[in-house]
């Protein structure tokens, strides 16, 4: 008799959801912490899956004997991955050359990669510079 009155006690029905919520909160916190940790651990994801190989192809197409000629940078159109658009710039301390389409503003959906290169300039010098490539849909 005493056991059945404990089972029908009104207090029990009201405290259980609070316990459940606390549990749910804890689970959700754990899940989000886990997700954040996963993102942190995974290397930039597919970030440069296209930019790095495109950078190498642009470098191979625009360089001769390890020296990049800014004029041959226009070959970027031919080496861009199928279905993607690409742009490339070469910068030195006193010049900047650009080829390809204008990349969309902001970094959303645009892959980019860069490497140091030797750049031949009109005055016959071979200067230190930087080749940067953008790839997007």
């Amino acid at each position: 008799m005493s056991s059945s009155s404990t089972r029908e006690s009104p207090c029990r029905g009201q405290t259980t959801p609070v316990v459940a919520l606390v549990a749910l909160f804890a689970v959700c916190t754990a899940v989000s912490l886990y997700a954040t940790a996963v993102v942190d651990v995974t290397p930039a994801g597919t970030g440069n899956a296209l930019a790095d190989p495109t950078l190498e192809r642009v470098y191979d197409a625009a360089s001769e004997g390890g020296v990049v000629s800014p004029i041959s940078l226009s070959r970027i159109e031919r080496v861009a991955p199928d279905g993607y658009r690409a742009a490339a710039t070469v910068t030195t301390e006193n010049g900047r050359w650009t080829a390809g389409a204008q990349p969309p503003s902001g970094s959303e959906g645009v892959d980019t990669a860069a490497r140091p290169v030797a750049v031949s300039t009109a005055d016959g010098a071979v200067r230190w510079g930087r080749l940067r490539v953008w790839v997007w849909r």
Partner: protein
Amino acid sequence: MNAAVDAVVALLLISAAVGVVVTGSGAQTSEPTPDRADAVADALAATTAAVNYSLAPGVRELNRSTAKTGRVPPDGNPELHRTAHGSLAGLLARATTASSGVANGSRPAEEPLTRTRAGFRRAVRDAVLARTGGGVRIDAVWRPYPDAPVGGRLGVGPEPPGDGVHAATLTIPTGVEPVPAEATVTFEALGRAVAARTVEILVPHDAARVTLRGDDPAAALVAHRYARLANATNTSIAEPLATEDTAAANARLTDALAARMTGELKAEYNHPGQAVEAVSVSSVRIVVRTWGGPEGRR
């Protein structure tokens, strides 16, 4: 009713979690990736530069050692100004061999023989550092063979961290012929061939003769260099140098070094053919190391 509140709270929590994940990944992609070491090495080999320097540190050292101060005013003397052209890798190699030394007692091989090229060394280091920026370390090393009593070293850039480092190696010729095949039959022939090439790199006899016959401060600097070299190898070369016979002076220095190098090679290797594999007298090794962190130039 309670279940609806539960669901709303759960949704709120999950969307908050999604927000956290998106912010986290957004911050991740903006992090710059380090330059690859082979790309830096390629650019070092192909980029050319002209560096201006002065022989003044050598003249100051000379004035101190001869106690005849004021004989050649080192500062602002246009006779001491020099310009060197070449690829960055070539300049690194020249700075390394030009500032090499000879081990003598407690003196290490990498301590420069004279300070004549201290200005060149600094100018090359500055020229390379201005282009590579941070996150790159370049070490140029010249050693006729591992643990040889002669050698030079030039390091540019900060020390790399313990892990996450990419590396690439360049080999730049020093301008002397490689050791010929017939010199690999005996240790004596090999030691002599290595010593002759080493001396030719330390003081190229043709250029030294021309300089010694002049009367500008450079002649005194070459004589000083010979004196240091004679001291480090316990050789007397005053007599051939009196007639600017640099070929004979170099031959005497070669004799002294050959005996030392032959002994060392004999002690280290079982067979001359094995020793010649380790000989690298005709090239400078440039090791490029890159790692993550702040990019020097964008």
